[in-house]
C-alpha cells in the first residue's frame, strides 16, 4: 500500500509538471470537441491526433491521447442529450432519456449528472486500474470466445428490459439490428454477405453512422414534419442545477454503472460498447417506476454515462498490465508509445514506472479537468437550444455529414447515415423504439464471431459452454434474466392477445 502511495506521488510529480498538465488540458478540450462532433468518436479523435504525438515525449503523448479519449466520452453525451445525436457509440442510450429530459426542460440537470457520473466513474476506474491492474489483467485473459459469447448473450437478454413499448415491436427492432450486423465479410468463412459488391460494405455497417441517422436525422425530419415549429427553449439558471430528488435518484445508477462498466471494460474485445446498454437495462429493471424510462428518467442518463466512462478506464487495465490492446482505441495508444521505442508489455509497469504512474495520475487530473471544464459549460451548451430550429437543424445536418465522412473518408458511411435517417423517421412514425436496433447491430457481429470461434475451438461441440465455469455461470444468469423477462407473457397467457402489441409489458 505504501509502495502504491509512493508510486502515485511519483506519478503526480510527473502529471502536475506544467508541460504535462498543459497537454492534459489540451487533450481534454480537443476530446470534448471531437466527442461533440456527430459521428466522430474517441477512436476517430485519437487516430487523427496520433501522428501529431510522434514528436512529443511518450508520457506527454499518452497523456494527450488519453485526455482526448476521456474528453470524447464526456463530449459524446452533450449532443446526445441536447440534440439526440449520439456523438459516439457509447452515448446511444443517453439519447433516449437525456433528450427526453431536454424536451421536458431539464437539459441542464441531465448534462450535469452526465458530467458528475462520468467523473465519479472515471475516477473509480482509475483507482481500480491503479490497485488491481496486474491481478485483473490475468483474469481478463481467461475471457476467451466462449466467455465472450456468454457475456454477449446476457447483453441480448437485457434487450427485453430496454424498451417500454410492446415486446413484439422491441423484438422486431432487435431483429432488424441483428440483421444489419450480418452485412460484410464473414470472418469465419471469408464469404461476403449482403454487400452488393461494394468493397466498403465488406467491414459491415458501422454503429456510428447508423446511430446518428436513426436518432439524430430522424429527429430533424420529425421536427420538420410538425405543424407548428417547436418552441425554442429559454432555460433559466435554476433549471441548470439538478434537484435534490434527481441527485438522490442518480446515486445508485452511478455506483452500479461504474462497477459494471469497469468490469466489462477490462474484458478483451469491444464489449465496452454494450456496458451502457447493459447499465440502462439494469436500471430500468431495478427502478420502481420503469414506465418513466424513455420519458426523461435521470437514472437512464446517470447509469449508462457512468458505465461507459468506467469502461474506458477498464480498457487500460490489460493495455498497461500486459501490453494487449483490448479495443481499437487502446491499440492506437499502444502505437503511440511504440513509436517512441517503448514496447508495451507485461514488464512496462516495472520498467517504465514514470510512464505508468504518470499516466495513472494524469487520469485523475484529466477527470478533474473535464469536470471543471464541463460543469460551467452546461450553461453555455444549454443556451445552444435558444437558436431557432431553422438555423440550428441545417447546421446539425451539415455537421453530421462532415463528421461521418471524416471517420474513414468514406461516402458510403454518409449514405448509410442518411438512409438510416429516413428509416428511423418512418419507424418512429409507426411508434417503434430504435434503441434495440442499435444494440442488435452492436451485438450481432461480436456475438456471431465469438459463438463461431467457440465452436471452432471445440470442433462444433456445444459442450464447450458447459465446461468453462465463467461461461456457464454467465449463461445461467442470462437464462434466468430471460425467464424473468418473459414471465409477464406466460402468466398472463389468457389475455396475451390483448396484451401483446397493445399494452405495455411489465418490466
Amino acid at each position, binding site marked *: 500500500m505504501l509502495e502504491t502511495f509512493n508510486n502515485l506521488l511519483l506519478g503526480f510529480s510527473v502529471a502536475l509538471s506544467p508541460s504535462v498538465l498543459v497537454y492534459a488540458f489540451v487533450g481534454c478540450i480537443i476530446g470534448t470537441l471531437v466527442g461533440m462532433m456527430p459521428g466522430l468518436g474517441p477512436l476517430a479523435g485519437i487516430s487523427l491526433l496520433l501522428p501529431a504525438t510522434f514528436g512529443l515525449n511518450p508520457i506527454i503523448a499518452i497523456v494527450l491521447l488519453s485526455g482526448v479519449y476521456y474528453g470524447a466520452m464526456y463530449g459524446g453525451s452533450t449532443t446526445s442529450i441536447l440534440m439526440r445525436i449520439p456523438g459516439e457509440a457509447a452515448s446511444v442510450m443517453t439519447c433516449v432519456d437525456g433528450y427526453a429530459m431536454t424536451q421536458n426542460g431539464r437539459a441542464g440537470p441531465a448534462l450535469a449528472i452526465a458530467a458528475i457520473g462520468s467523473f465519479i466513474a472515471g475516477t473509480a476506474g482509475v483507482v481500480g486500474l491503479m490497485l488491481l491492474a496486474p491481478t485483473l489483467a490475468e483474469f481478463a485473459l481467461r475471457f476467451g470466445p466462449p466467455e465472450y459469447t456468454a457475456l454477449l448473450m446476457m447483453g441480448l437478454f437485457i434487450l427485453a428490459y430496454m424498451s417500454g413499448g410492446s415486446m413484439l415491436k422491441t423484438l422486431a427492432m432487435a431483429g432488424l439490428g441483428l440483421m444489419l450486423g450480418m452485412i460484410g465479410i464473414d470472418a469465419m468463412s471469408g464469404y*461476403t454477405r449482403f454487400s452488393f459488391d461494394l468493397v466498403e460494405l465488406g467491414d459491415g455497417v458501422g454503429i456510428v453512422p447508423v446511430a446518428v441517422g436513426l436518432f439524430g436525422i430522424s429527429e430533424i425530419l420529425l421536427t420538420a414534419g410538425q405543424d407548428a415549429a417547436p418552441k425554442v427553449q429559454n432555460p433559466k439558471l435554476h433549471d441548470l442545477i439538478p434537484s435534490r430528488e434527481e441527485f438522490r435518484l442518480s446515486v445508485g445508477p452511478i455506483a452500479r454503472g461504474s462497477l459494471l462498466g469497469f468490469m466489462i471494460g477490462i474484458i478483451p474485445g469491444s464489449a465496452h460498447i454494450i456496458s451502457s446498454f447493459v447499465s440502462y437495462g439494469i436500471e430500468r429493471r431495478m427502478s420502481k417506476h420503469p414506465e418513466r424510462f424513455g420519458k426523461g428518467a435521470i437514472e437512464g442518463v446517470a447509469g449508462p454515462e457512468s458505465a461507459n466512462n468506467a469502461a474506458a478506464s477498464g480498457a487500460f487495465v490489460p493495455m498497461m498490465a500486459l501490453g494487449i490492446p483490448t479495443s481499437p482505441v487502446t491499440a492506437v495508444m499502444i502505437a503511440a508509445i511504440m513509436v517512441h521505442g517503448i514496447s508495451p508489455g507485461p514488464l512496462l509497469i516495472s520498467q517504465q514506472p514514470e510512464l505508468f504512474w504518470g499516466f495513472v495520475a494524469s487520469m485523475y487530473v484529466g477527470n478533474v479537468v473535464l469536470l471543471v471544464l464541463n460543469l460551467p459549460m452546461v450553461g453555455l451548451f444549454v443556451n445552444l437550444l435558444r437558436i431557432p430550429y431553422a438555423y440550428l437543424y441545417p447546421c446539425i445536418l451539415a455537421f453530421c455529414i462532415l463528421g461521418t465522412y471524416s471517420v474513414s473518408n468514406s461516402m458510403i458511411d454518409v449514405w448509410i447515415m442518411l438512409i438510416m435517417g429516413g428509416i428511423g423517421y418512418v419507424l418512429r412514425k409507426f411508434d417503434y423504439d430504435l434503441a434495440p436496433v442499435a444494440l442488435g447491430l452492436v451485438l450481432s457481429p461480436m456475438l456471431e464471431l465469438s459463438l463461431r*470461434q467457440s465452436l471452432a475451438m471445440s470442433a462444433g461441440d456445444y459442450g464447450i459452454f458447459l465446461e468453462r465455469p465463467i461461461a456457464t455461470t454467465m449463461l445461467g444468469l442470462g437464462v434466468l434474466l430471460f425467464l424473468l423477462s418473459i414471465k409477464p407473457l406466460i402468466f398472463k397467457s389468457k389475455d396475451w392477445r390483448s396484451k401483446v402489441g397493445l399494452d405495455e409489458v411489465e418490466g
Partner: protein
Amino acid sequence: MKNHYLETVLLGLCLFVPGLSGAQDHYPSKSITIVSPFPPGGTSDLTARQLAPVLERIFKQPVVVQNRPGAAGATGSQVVANSAPDGYTLILHLVSISALPERDKLFGHKPAYTRDQFVGIARITADPPMLVVHPSLPAKNLKEFVALARKKPGEMIFSSSGLYGASHVPFEMFLQAANLKMRHLPTTGGAPAMTAVLGGHAVTWASPPNIAAPHLKSGKVRAFAQWGEKRLEAFPEVPTFKEQGYDIEYYLWGGLFAPKNVPPQVFNTLREAVRKAVNDPEFVKGMEKIRTPIAYQDADEFNAWWDKDAQKLAQVIQRIGKVTEK
C-alpha cells in the same frame, strides 16, 4: 479580328506548353499522398509515417499519409488502383496485397483490384513471423511440438489475425509442410490473436516479432521457429524452419506501390527518392523504434520477388480452399 484570333491561340499555346512540360519535368510539383490501407497505429501506417517526412525533405513537397482502412486493406487498394497514375497517389501496402485478389478468386467474386494494377517502387521491410506457443504446452522445441500435435490430430488450436490473412497463410504453409492437422481460430487482428494464445484459448500462432517480443521477454510465450531465411538479429536464439528441415519461407513485408501506368520519369524519381530515404539516419532510427527492420529491395528486384512471393501465397490459399467445403 482574324489577327486577334491568332494572337489568342498563340498566347494560349505559349501559356499552355510550358505548363505541360513543367508538370512533367518538375515532378513532384504538388503534395504527394501515401495511402495506408490499414487503421492508424498498424505496421503500414507507422512505416508510411516514418517515410513521409524523409521523402518530404527529398522532394521539397508535402508528403501526406492518409488512412483508408476497410475490408482488410481492400478499400484503400481499390482507391489507389483506380487513381490517376501521376505519381501523386501512392500506397504503402503489406504482404496481404497479394492475398486479397486470391481470396476474391476463390469465392468467385469480381476482385476489388488485381495485382497488375500496381507496380512496386520498393520493398521497405520484410520480417518473418515467429511460431510462438503458450508456455503450459509440454514441448520445448519444434520437434517436440510437432510430435505433440501429431499425437492429437485436429485437436490443438492455432489462432490467426484472420482467415487467409498474413498470419494464417504462413501457419498453413507449416501445417502442409509438416503434414499436420490443427484447429483454426481466426480472430480479427494481431492483438486478439496474441491475446488468444496468452489466455490459453489457442496454443500457438505465427506472430510478427514486434508483437511477440515483450511476451517472449516476460516468459508468457515461447518461440520455437521463425519463417525467415536467416536467424534474426533481435532473436538469435530462435532457429528458422529451414534449419529444422522444413523448406518454408514467408515474410510479413511492406512495400511502396504506385498505380501501374506511372510515367517512367516519375517512377524513376520516386525510386531514387525511396532509395535515398531508406538510408537516411532519421528513417533508420524511426524504424528501429517501431521495431521493424528495414529490408530494402529496389524496384526491379522487388517486382520479380513480389511475383514469386504472390505465386507461393496463391498456392497456399488455393490449398486451404473454402473452409465450408471441409
